[in-house]
């Protein structure tokens, strides 16, 4: 079964980490990622820019409204996610615990994926 692990944290705090602190966290996450990848459990994963870089298209009117900023003002923001391919929720929770263990703070939502369309572009790499 495919799961998304959605990572939430106060971005204000996360973007206040020094370069060294950030690099230390990313190093530890990298080790967990390699482990989960080697076990065949981890698919794509990504880290988002701060919500200040976000733009929201709201379809509550026609044409839809373009709004600067994230969809919702919340205490914790969606900062990134992982895609897991594991047998059940327990296994997904185990993986999420490994990811959480190397993250200072935050919350990790384990959300089963209903439909997954893989990147169909040949040799696709983000720009």
């Amino acid at each position, binding site marked *: 079964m495919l799961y998304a692990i959605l990572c939430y944290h*106060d971005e*204000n*705090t*996360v*973007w*206040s*980490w*020094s*370069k060294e*602190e950030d690099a*230390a*966290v990313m190093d530890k996450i990298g080790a967990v990622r390699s482990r989960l990848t080697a076990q065949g459990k981890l698919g794509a994963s990504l880290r988002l*820019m*701060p*919500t*200040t*870089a976000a*733009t929201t298209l709201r379809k509550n009117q026609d044409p839809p409204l*373009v709004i*600067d*900023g994230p969809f919702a*003002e919340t*205490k*914790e923001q969606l900062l990134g996610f992982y895609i897991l391919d594991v047998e059940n929720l327990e296994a997904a929770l185990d993986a999420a615990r490994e990811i959480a263990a190397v993250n*200072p*703070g935050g919350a990790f939502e384990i959300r089963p994926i209903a439909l997954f369309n893989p990147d169909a572009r040949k040799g696709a790499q983000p720009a």
Partner: protein
Amino acid sequence: MTDLAWIGAALAAARPQAVGALLRYFRDLDRAEEAFQEAALRAMKNWPQNGPPRDPAAWLILVGRNAGLDGVRKQARTVALPEEDSISDVEDVEAPLAERLDGSHYRDDVLRLLFICCHPDLPATQQIALALRIVSGLTVKQIARAFLVSEAAMEQRITRAKQRVARADVPFEAPGPVERSQRLAAVMAMVYLVFNEGYSAGDGEARAALCDEAIRLGRLLLRLFQTEPEVMGLTALMLLQHARAHARFDAGGEIVLLEDQDRAQWDGELIGEGLALMDKAMRHNRPGPYQIQAAIAATHARAARAADTDWAGIDALYAALERMQPSPVITLNRAVATAKLHGPEAALAMIAPLEKVLGGYFNFYGVRGAFQLQLGRSAEARADFNRAIALANTPAEAAHIRRHLDRHLLEAQTR
């Protein structure tokens, strides 16, 4: 990251909001700072045991306010308030705080705190020092290191600046829209000063920390004013310039010119965020000086090699900036683009009238010397470079010009 490092980052992140709210509450900068300090001390004891609160700023405001009142009550020999352990679950106290923490209050609190540091009577260096101390929470020692002065001198500078702003009487009522946008403009200028203080002297960790801090303040402003294209422009400008930090100095600490920089060393993440913000700003169709400067930086960032630089685009952007904000320094910068497009002779003609005003600016003679050199006028070039060295502000600037001169002399000898 250890507990303490995490708490340090959380305290730094919550500081502008918390000190801003405490300042509104106590209407006294020293008391607000002391209350925050006390709250931060209690957080370092409380958070590792009870876990971090969901809203660190709200926790710090409440605990800071109680600590501040505590002090007053102790003096008045009355009963102290309950310990913060009993209020560690912030959800309980959020309702009475909601009024104080709603978006507009929060925004004006932070803006006021930043605005206090921009008092027009304060010289730029004092504005920067004050902002770094009050808003960013850097220690006097850290700030002194960045400015290369003694701790005692910096302590005195900050104390004097504080005395001056205490007398200034910034109103505590929520500002009207005009007042708010005036404050925002002053605050943006101050944030860019912080950035430039770090950027201009460049190398050195204490200095680079100022650039990081200015970017953090830019993102903070942008969260508060999400639809302001100039705030997007300012933040983009700082991100795009800071992205070149590692390429701007060689191993010996000497300046490397933009066209000689190893572009592989530019920070792609910072560039990506800067370009994303520029995309957002452009949609507003309300250009301003920060957006145009950011667009110039973005044009450089988009060129994979120096030779690919869109000089016509840069020249047009400088022309727009000149119209918006006439300044001899902008004309001098534009001349570099003009030289690329129309040759050094045209550029020399463009900057000829500037000598009267820029005669004390090292870079004027550095730029003019380079144009003279391109035209093969050795004696004039040498004279200009020597003048630039005499006027340079930092050893790196002087060394940079001197290297120009040495290279030139070497070429002259081998010719």
